[in-house]
């Protein structure tokens, strides 16, 4: 059974310096509040894993939490580049950032393999691109029946995965709906997991498109209403597109960025 914890306690207990950490959420349900708590608690040397490192990872990288990034698309969706990510890659500020770069299909299948207890996944992907030149984590494999050559990628097994969902019940079962991305796989692939939720309810109302994750497969659940902002939680909030636009300006300059983090993250209270 998942424990119900505060966000601060959940992050303190489950996210450790040097960990491989996946915060997932595909545009929808991005666990920003948990990311801010990781910054507040000053985690260091994290290997950050995420298909689409967007503003949340820009913040973690700029705040100096990350040593390494495993990803498939790093940008500010609909806006442009991630300036803290670029500054880390191009100028090693605030610290060098190692990259391990994949395609979406590769990352998604790496989570599937992790969730399935397999050491690797097979796909038709990467062939002919320059991606395999820069990591040993993209290899070939031959079909034992047809002899055809395909691509293999190793399973992702984060030390901890953090996702945001709409609801949990008191037994720690989690309900999410709308675009649920790769969250189930990312969570099941991890050794430990933390789910932040908009609301804790006595009983779920069944909904079309829902994904229910059993509490016995989750380590901890924390109540963090609004915890996806500026991303959104369908049924609870809408995407704050203005913030994503504003982030472009905030993040362009190191000092403006530091001021923003100080004011909106470091000196802010953890929610709930």
């Amino acid at each position, binding site marked *: 059974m998942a424990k119900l914890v505060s966000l601060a306690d959940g992050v303190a207990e489950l996210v450790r310096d040097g960990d491989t950490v996946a915060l997932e959420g595909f545009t929808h349900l991005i666990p920003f509040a948990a990311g801010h708590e990781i910054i507040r608690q000053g985690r260091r040397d994290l290997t950050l894993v995420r298909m689409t490192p967007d503003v949340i990872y820009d913040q973690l990288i700029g705040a100096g939490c990350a040593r390494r990034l495993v990803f498939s698309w790093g940008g500010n969706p609909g806006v442009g580049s991630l300036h803290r990510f670029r500054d880390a890659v191009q100028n090693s500020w605030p610290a060098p950032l190692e990259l391990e770069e994949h395609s979406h*299909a590769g990352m998604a299948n790496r989570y599937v393999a992790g969730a399935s207890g397999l050491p690797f996944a097979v796909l038709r992907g990467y062939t002919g691109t320059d991606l395999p030149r820069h990591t040993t984590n993209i290899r070939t494999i031959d079909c034992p029946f047809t002899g055809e050559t395909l691509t293999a990628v190793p399973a992702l097994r984060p030390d901890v995965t953090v996702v945001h969902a709409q609801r949990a019940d008191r037994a720690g079962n989690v309900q999410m709906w709308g675009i649920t991305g790769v969250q189930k796989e990312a969570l099941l692939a991890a050794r430990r997991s933390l789910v932040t939720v908009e609301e804790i309810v006595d009983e779920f109302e069944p909904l079309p498109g829902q994904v229910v994750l059993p509490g016995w497969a989750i380590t901890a659940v924390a109540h963090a209403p609004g915890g996806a902002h500026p991303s959104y939680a369908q049924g609870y909030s809408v995407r704050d597109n203005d913030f994503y636009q504003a982030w472009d300006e905030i993040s362009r300059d190191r000092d403006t960025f530091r001021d923003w983090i100080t004011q909106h993250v470091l000196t802010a209270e953890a929610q709930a």
Partner: protein
Amino acid sequence: MSANYTADEMMTVAAARQLRDGTACFVGIGLPSTAANLARATHAPGLVLIYESGCLGAKPDRLPLSIGDGILADTADSVVSVPEVFNYWLQPGRIDVGFLGAAQLDRYGNINTTVIGGDYTDPKVRLPGAGGAPEIAASCGEVVVIVRQSLRTFTERVDFVTSVGFGAGPGDRARLGLRGGGPRTVITDLGVLEADPVTCELTLTRLHPGVTVERAREATGWPLAVADDLATGEPPTPDELAVLRALMAA
């Protein structure tokens, strides 16, 4: 001649026209999504829009602001997981058309969206990276690229192959085991290029109204092949323009 529409509007309209009714189209945010939604609102009401966030058959009545916009899930025939959209829908070749953008493109339609300049570990410009593009380029029935044409984007050689077009030329896709048809069409703000069926080289086949071959050549970083029967495309119809502007305003 001063047109009552912008070059970007012409490009979007030309891209929309490329999409046939009743086909399935893998759509990225930005120009591809605008063009696909324009097609659906005009000549291709049965166009099936597929977004990598897992939305199959999305029918937004305004332009989504991200590939995970709530309106896509709300209007989709089915919302599936991200692994499913790549494994069950894209990979087996079920999707007729993939729409891609590019930061750099070469004459064989190979695409770079990863790094520009320097080397990979110390690039001049770090771009977002691959996303779904490598497998869209590999597996869709055909690929349509939408990109503004300039010496910066149309380069002799891409600095990084993020998504494979026709590789180094004829036979390369088959040799690599890429099963989709590759980048048959590139739509720019100047005109339309099509891959030559024999040489695989992108060949200028159509200019947008008011654009000259010289301007297209000057915006291309290699000696541009031009079709013998180079045509001039139709300008946007009043209906296309009205629908496009309504979509952009909504």
